[in-house]
């Protein structure tokens, strides 16, 4: 044991007193634990992404219906010759396993197929709608992180007071209220009655979108120096972002409250208070920073769920993002679209998990040696 621990690191070995000892000492160079940790996580992510392709492919192929009829429509589907031609053209006459490998092969070349309904490449359409969801997701995550953390902190610091009870009740409502209902009511109240926000859509209908750079209208309009378009885009973003953020605000409030309450009991916090440090320093430097680490996970996962869960919000606010695209694909039985969106959302989740794992790995050395 002592010999092993004194052996030089970095793949260099000391001269051996005899062959047996040398054989014992020569070991493959050890990877740095952090690098090993990252490589393992990359490996797991790749396997997970492959798993997502299998699941989305199988699920969409298990739907008890014929996509060819949906593609062709009633009239053209009445002609067996056209049906057979279309089936062959789409490769649907091949065995399932062949179809899967064709799908996977195309996928590896960046080809997600073509929408059966609109004949537009799925990747191009996702590229078109993804920035809209990202913009909405970023808006929602910013609002929910700021409000969720602050409300959670306030609730913990005012534990068992009326403020605490009020915040806890509000967070419960945020978590449990149906998004579709909230969205409809919010649109009616804030747009129709109070007129404090503009109507549905990402911009007023008579405004031409800014030249595409990132696809985020707020960013692109700033880059193009179009301030009026920027304020219009920002105005359109606020209400849907707030609605979408409600669930995450509730979640983060509860999570950060309990996290802060855990930290508050630690000795170093008591010591800081005893030293007579100003309360703001104690709260933000000692309590809040300590409580922040486990919250990273919730924020990361919340971003993934915001992207995939925006279907109803996007529908109410006519927000042409990934959610609305997915809804349209599902209702028209557009299998390439369903598989494409499923894959993208799966990959986003896996990537977010991967990044969260990495942050954990960096922050907490115990994680990477497990």
């Amino acid at each position, binding site marked *: 044991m002592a010999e092993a621990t004194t052996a030089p690191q970095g793949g260099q070995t000391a001269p051996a007193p005899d062959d047996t000892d040398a054989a014992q000492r020569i070991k493959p160079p050890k990877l740095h634990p952090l690098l090993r940790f990252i490589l393992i996580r990359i490996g797991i992510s790749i396997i997970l992404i492959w798993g997502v392709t299998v699941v989305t492919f199988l699920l969409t192929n298990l*739907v*008890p219906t*014929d996509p060819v*009829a*949906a593609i062709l*429509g*009633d*009239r*053209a*589907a*009445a002609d067996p010759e*056209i049906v057979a031609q279309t089936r062959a053209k789409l490769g649907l006459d091949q065995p399932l396993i062949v179809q899967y490998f064709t799908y996977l092969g195309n996928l590896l070349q960046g080809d997600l197929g073509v929408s059966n*309904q*609109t*004949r*537009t490449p799925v990747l191009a*359409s996702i590229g*078109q*709608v993804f920035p809209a969801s990202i913009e909405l997701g970023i808006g929602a995550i910013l*609002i929910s992180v*700021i409000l969720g953390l*602050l409300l959670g902190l*306030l609730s913990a*610091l005012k534990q068992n007071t009326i403020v605490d009870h009020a915040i806890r009740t509000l967070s419960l409502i945020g978590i449990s209220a149906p998004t579709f209902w909230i969205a409809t009511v919010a*649109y*009616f109240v804030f*747009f*129709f009655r109070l007129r*404090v*926000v*503009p*109507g*549905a859509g990402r911009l*007023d*209908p*008579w*405004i*031409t979108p800014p030249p595409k750079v990132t696809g985020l209208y707020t960013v692109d309009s700033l880059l193009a120096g*179009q*301030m*009026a*378009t920027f*304020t*219009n885009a*920002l*105005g359109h*973003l*606020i209400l849907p972002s707030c609605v979408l953020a409600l669930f995450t605000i509730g979640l983060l409030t509860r999570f950060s409250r309990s996290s802060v309450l855990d930290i508050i009991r630690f000795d170093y916090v008591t010591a800081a208070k005893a030293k007579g440090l100003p*309360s*703001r320093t104690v*709260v933000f430097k000692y309590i809040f920073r300590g409580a922040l680490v486990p919250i990273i996970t919730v924020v990361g996962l919340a971003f993934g769920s915001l992207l995939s869960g925006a279907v109803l919000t996007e*529908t*109410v*606010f*006519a927000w*042409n993002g990934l959610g*609305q695209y997915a809804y349209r694909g599902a*209702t*028209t*039985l557009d299998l390439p679209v369903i598989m494409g969106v499923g894959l993208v959302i799966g990959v986003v989740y896996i990537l977010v998990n991967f990044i969260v794992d990495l942050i954990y790995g960096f922050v907490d050395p115990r994680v990477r040696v497990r």
Partner: protein
Amino acid sequence: MRRLTRNFVAICSTLALTAGLAACGSGSDEAGGAGDTIVAETAFNLKTIDPHRQFEFTGSTIDNAVYQTALEFEDGDLTKPTDGLCSFEMSDDSKEMTLTLKDEDAKFSNGDPVTVDDIVFSFERLQGIKGNPSFFLDGVSVEKVDDETVKLISKDPNPALPYILPNASIGIVNSKVVKENEGTTDEDDGAEQFLNENSQGSGPYKVEKYDADSQVVLTANEHYNGPEPKYKRVVLRNVSAETQLTDIQSGQAQVAYDLNSDQAKQIDESMGKISSLPSTRSLYIFNNTDEKTGGPAADPDFRKAVMAAIDYDKLIDLAGEGSQRMASLVPNEFVGAVSKDEAPERDLAKAKKLLKKAGYDGEKVPFHYSSDQAVNGVDLAQLAETLQAQLKEADINLDLKPAPSSTQLDGFRSAKQPMGIGTWGADFPDPTNYNVFIPGGSVAERVNWNEDPQLKKLANEAAKAKGDERDSAYAKLFKATTDTAVWIPLVQPVDTVAVGSSITKFVSNADVSFDFAKAE
């Protein structure tokens, strides 16, 4: 801690201020004005706007504004096709139609004149690419006679042809440009994507931006030879019915297509107007005639009992003001419609008597319908539940089988459903469009109804009838069809278009629903 609370309030105030500023900054210098733009909203049902491939409501709405057709329905009178780009004449045997180019000043959006060659190419492309609307010109050959005349020759008598040609799917395209962009008259045609983004029509508008998922923008065609449209731009947006209601009430949109009767009632005169027209769609119950599949529904007495057990007045209430009773599947405004007076009536005693005769003892009958579909504002799930409650009063037990429309349609198409709700939208306003419901027709096959000598005889007589006799011959055929109760007509819904108060004059008709070019 007090300072912390103050900080929190400050952050919240900043957020609220940003929101307020952004909201106030909606008017924009880059924006141009809203004054010359019509914003129309509908829940998109859009695959393409290539006129010869489109067959859905949204595509048709757009193509009506972009493409002119050889014939038209003036003021939406669906009983009388009139001249469009061409005048027409039918031969006595209804096998030959002569079209003469009438509108010689018509120009495509790039300034090219509309020629007979464009008309011939458009007809042949529609036929050759074998898309969903290709059936319109099945069995018809197209022949250019000279630079002013085209002949359409049908194998069999085709009196429906004048009713078919006004369809937006038979829009006339600029053949030269389409051919240059992979357009052909066979299945190798590759011009769809080009036509989606670069419309090639001679109508009042052309396509500025096409996005099948979110919105389509049209701008005025400067070469249009008709009256210049007041609104130079049309933005057609994909918006849910709930949001459409709020948008039309607030003036955010000027046209909303998908409001149901309850939503339409919420619009008062200060917000807008409701234009209601009879829909060209029919809602009906189908009964499978095959004993193995249909079970009780295959028994004619059971079917007639169902017909007698329905409370049709309540269905009219459900479908809203302007909806109508139907005595057959043919809408009341069409040639060949059976008079509303002959529509089935509720008679519970008769229903119970018929059930006894059929030997039905209350077993559950699977009843299929699309749970995600509304037809002219009539929610099919709500309709199914209403029917279940009504039939229960006659001791008929429906076992509701909701499914998404794509799955439900699959089951219906494969003739595997015993009973359920069907919908039919007229492809063209002529009774021959309903021949598919006669034994041997493509829809009749879905309920395994292949033979009925009496109906076959009536169908032959109707096919031979001419002039005014045609109307009564088809009415006789479809009345006899209803009497079998294989199809039970439920209601003809109403086509509702909500028009915002900023529009003072508009034309809304059964043909094009809302005419953007004529709005003021």
